């Protein structure tokens, strides 16, 4: 019996013109998204390579490691980030590494190229969020009341059909009818990626599979919701209207509003204030050190030897610099921690509110899975900080000191031929290697939202079940 109901539902959906049209549109959209994402990755990758090459080129011709300045590292584009962009275009990508001090990423893609910010990008997260939910609503808004209007519901129950089997069959049938055909363009899309030369690693495929799975959970949530509402109402036109309003709120309004609300409710100290505090401390420390420098006297016995004198001076400057750095670090750590704690509270409030909407839960889950969630910013920052230490170690080995971004010009007034120096090889600088947030970490973060989505499925299903149990089929 159960199989028969599923079969009927499958036939009804797949045989309809509505299905042909919407499936065509969805398939085109999904394929377009994969294609555009792949091409977009290529463009970003080219830009990234150009930036790295230009960074090395600007150092060529230098003869002294001391002269090295403006060493920059960049956030490399991730293959999956083109499919689920998350915040990857909003956060700063370029970090100037000085060897000390705080790292700060600048130049987000949208800030650099605001024309992309006008309409933003087309990605899988967006297409799934809007299209899958509309798709589900369109096919299930009249699941119960439509059959009643047509009189087929009464007819079905003239036979010995158990209601629980009927509703379960309806939902399963509709889900299969929508999900399985959708797999076709998705799989085709997956084939497009390697064809476009997007280097997908083994890990990436797992992530993509999980994203698609999340998409189906999301589809299920809207499907069960539609059946639920159609079992609550008598007329299909009112259930459609109600669902459309719910859709607008769930997809477009609730996520945005909850973040803005949380932003107003939870105060986070502004970065301007922090920057000013840091600048003031830096200026103060510099003034103190200037007077210390003025009092510097080289040891009597090396007065005759400029090289030794220079060395001693360097050591002295290095010591001052290290002390300054330590004090700055202490302040920065305190300020950052303060800010990060407040940010965490804000995030919890914002996302807690937003999760009322399945669309928000879906978006949070997928961006987490791909590694383009809010955590990306901190993760990149940590990676850059780690790299800064590697770089500092390297520079110390090369020059014996860390200048921390100062411009030093050494003039020799005394005569004597200046030794012709060999140019440095910038390629000796250890390269920055970025590793995405590991899957096991992101899975933990995504689990909450996957759970929320599953919960939505369950609640709406139980709701549909209960409502249908008492539904007047006449």
């Amino acid at each position, binding site marked *: 019996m159960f199989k028969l109901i599923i079969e009927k539902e499958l036939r009804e959906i797949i045989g309809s013109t*509505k299905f042909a049209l919407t499936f065509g*549109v969805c398939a085109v959209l999904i394929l*377009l998204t994969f294609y*555009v994402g792949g*091409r977009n990755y290529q*463009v970003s990758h080219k830009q990234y390579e*150009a930036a790295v090459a*230009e*960074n090395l080129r600007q150092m060529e011709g*230098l003869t002294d490691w001391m002269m090295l300045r*403006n060493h920059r590292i960049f956030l490399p584009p991730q293959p999956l980030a083109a499919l689920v962009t*998350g*915040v990857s275009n*909003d*956060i700063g990508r*370029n970090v100037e590494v000085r060897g000390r001090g705080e790292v700060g990423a*600048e*130049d987000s893609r*949208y*800030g650099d190229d605001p*024309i*992309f910010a*006008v*309409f933003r*990008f087309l990605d899988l997260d967006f297409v799934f969020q*809007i299209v899958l939910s509309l798709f589900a609503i*369109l096919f299930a808004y009249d699941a119960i009341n439509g059959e009643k209007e047509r009189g087929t519901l009464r007819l079905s129950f003239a036979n010995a059909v158990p209601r629980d089997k009927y509703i379960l069959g309806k939902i399963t049938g509709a889900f299969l009818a929508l999900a399985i055909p959708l797999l076709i363009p998705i799989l085709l899309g997956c084939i497009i990626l390697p064809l476009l030369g997007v280097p997908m690693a083994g890990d990436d495929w797992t992530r993509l599979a999980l994203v698609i799975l999340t998409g189906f959970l999301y589809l299920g949530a809207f499907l069960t919701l539609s059946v639920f509402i159609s079992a609550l109402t008598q007329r299909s036109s009112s259930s459609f*209207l109600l669902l459309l*309003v719910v859709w607008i709120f769930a997809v477009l*309004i609730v996520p*945005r*509003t*909850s*973040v*803005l609300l*949380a*932003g107003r409710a939870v105060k986070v100290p*502004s970065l301007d*204030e922090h920057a*000013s505090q840091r*600048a*003031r401390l830096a200026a103060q420390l510099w003034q103190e050190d*200037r*007077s210390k420098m*003025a009092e510097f*006297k080289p040891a009597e016995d090396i*007065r005759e*030897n*400029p090289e030794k*004198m220079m060395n001693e001076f360097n050591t002295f400057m290095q010591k001052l610099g290290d002390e300054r750095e330590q004090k700055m670090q202490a302040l920065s750590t305190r300020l950052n921690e303060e800010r990060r704690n407040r940010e965490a509270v804000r995030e919890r409030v*914002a996302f807690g509110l*937003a999760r009322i909407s399945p669309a928000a839960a879906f978006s949070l889950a997928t*961006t987490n899975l791909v590694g383009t969630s*809010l955590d990306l*910013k901190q993760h990149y920052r940590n990676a850059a900080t780690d790299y800064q230490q590697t770089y500092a170690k390297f520079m110390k080995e090369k020059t014996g000191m860390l200048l921390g971004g100062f411009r030093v*010009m*050494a003039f*020799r*007034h005394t*005569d004597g031929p200046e030794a012709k120096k060999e140019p440095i090889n910038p390629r000796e600088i250890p390269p920055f290697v970025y590793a995405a947030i590991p899957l096991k970490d992101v899975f933990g973060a995504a689990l909450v939202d996957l759970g929320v989505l599953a919960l939505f499925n369950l609640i709406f299903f139980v709701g549909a079940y209960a409502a249908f149990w008492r539904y007047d089929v006449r």
Partner: protein
Amino acid sequence: MLGILIQKELKSILLSPKFVATFATCALLILLSVFVGIQEYHAAVKQYDAAVQLVEQDLREASSWMGLNNKIYRRPDPMQIFVSGVNNDIGRLSSVNTFDTIKLRSSIYSTDTIFAVFRYIDFVFIVQVVLSLFAILFTYDAVNGEREAGTLQLTFSNAVPRAQYILAKFIGSWLGLVIPLLIPVMLGLLLVLFYRVPFAGGHWAQLSTLLGASILFFTFFMAFGILVSTLTRQSAVSFLVSLVAWIAFVLIIPRAGVMAASQFVSVPTVAEIEGKQDGFEKSQWEKHREDIQKKWREREAAMQGMSEKEREAYRDEHEWEWLEQDDKDRKQMQKDINAFTQQLQEEARNRKAEQQRLAFTLSRFSPASAYQLAALNLAGTDAGLKTRYEDATQSYRTAFNEYADKKQKASGGAGGFRIEINSNTGIKIGNDRDKGTLDLSDMPKFTPPEHTYAAAIAPTLVDLGLLGLFTLAAFAGAFVRFLRYDVR
């Protein structure tokens, strides 16, 4: 006759339960968007004032004219309440000093990234996405729905001219939908007044044009819905077709157009430009270093054969002149670097303009993009906001640096920080000449770029014209189709 038909249409819209639900939703959303916008604007103004005050304080506490670091913040504009545009995406501030080039950095989305996760809600978003959907919802079955209900056949059994009928449909639904929507809009404007948002005359002009554009956009989707309903026999089909068109117009074409343009026109990134800039800067500094080294050697050579005392006297006599000369050289170099940077940025900007032209031309196939572009231009939160601010800051930088330079000369500081290592005297470190606070009373003030109504309206004319054209075409199509529509 026309009057009766319009009346009938009005009644059927206003009395439907559909109207109550959608009107309530729209009203709520419009008010919500304006309210949120006002709150955000006030918060932004507060942040801006605090930041500017901090900069002033930091400047006052600075002790040397040489390293004087000014910061220019982008001033919030009340129009961002209705059209946030790229306001959150582009940088909020730029450093202004001798060395750094002008670059807007620390955008709201990059510093407070949480706001970027689900983006923003503003009036334009509501109109573009929600109102357009509702326009379709009310018109998709305008003609074929009546046919299905049998009322179309009934109507035309009387002597009703078809032209008048379709015109009345259009006017009736327009009045029935637009006029109620004006209520929450007016309430939103009252909110603006109530919260004392500083709206000047220009802002009101911009806002009323924006409202006009919004109504035009809404009208397009109504005309489009009617067109589709005259093209099809069944309302179920026309709804699906309209919905698919809506998805394409509102969600897909704008994005796809811009993304296609990025494929065709490649633009160097900031990172690439800065790399080039740094390379040039380094080579210039290196040249400068060599020049100065040569000069100092020549100066030393001139002192050959003098006694220690004579040397001291000679040095005292010439030191000032030497320093001035070195300083002049350094400034020349700085000028060269600036010129090179400007040229690089100019080139990149030209490429970007080309990309933008292509991107927006492709996107304009959708009325939704035309509307959004018009709205952004009107409010001044378009992609050009960045260049406008950068240009204004650039010219301010020139004035500011000249001022700081003049002041530094007057105070007699040599600038920089000189360490001398001499085999005779050991290491000598120059100390600051100027101590204590600076008098900044006559410092040049930054004037934010003005976005006048005249400047705002010019680029929107294309988009408004396009919107008008789209609407006209849709309506004409519906009109022609209906004249030959089989009413049975």
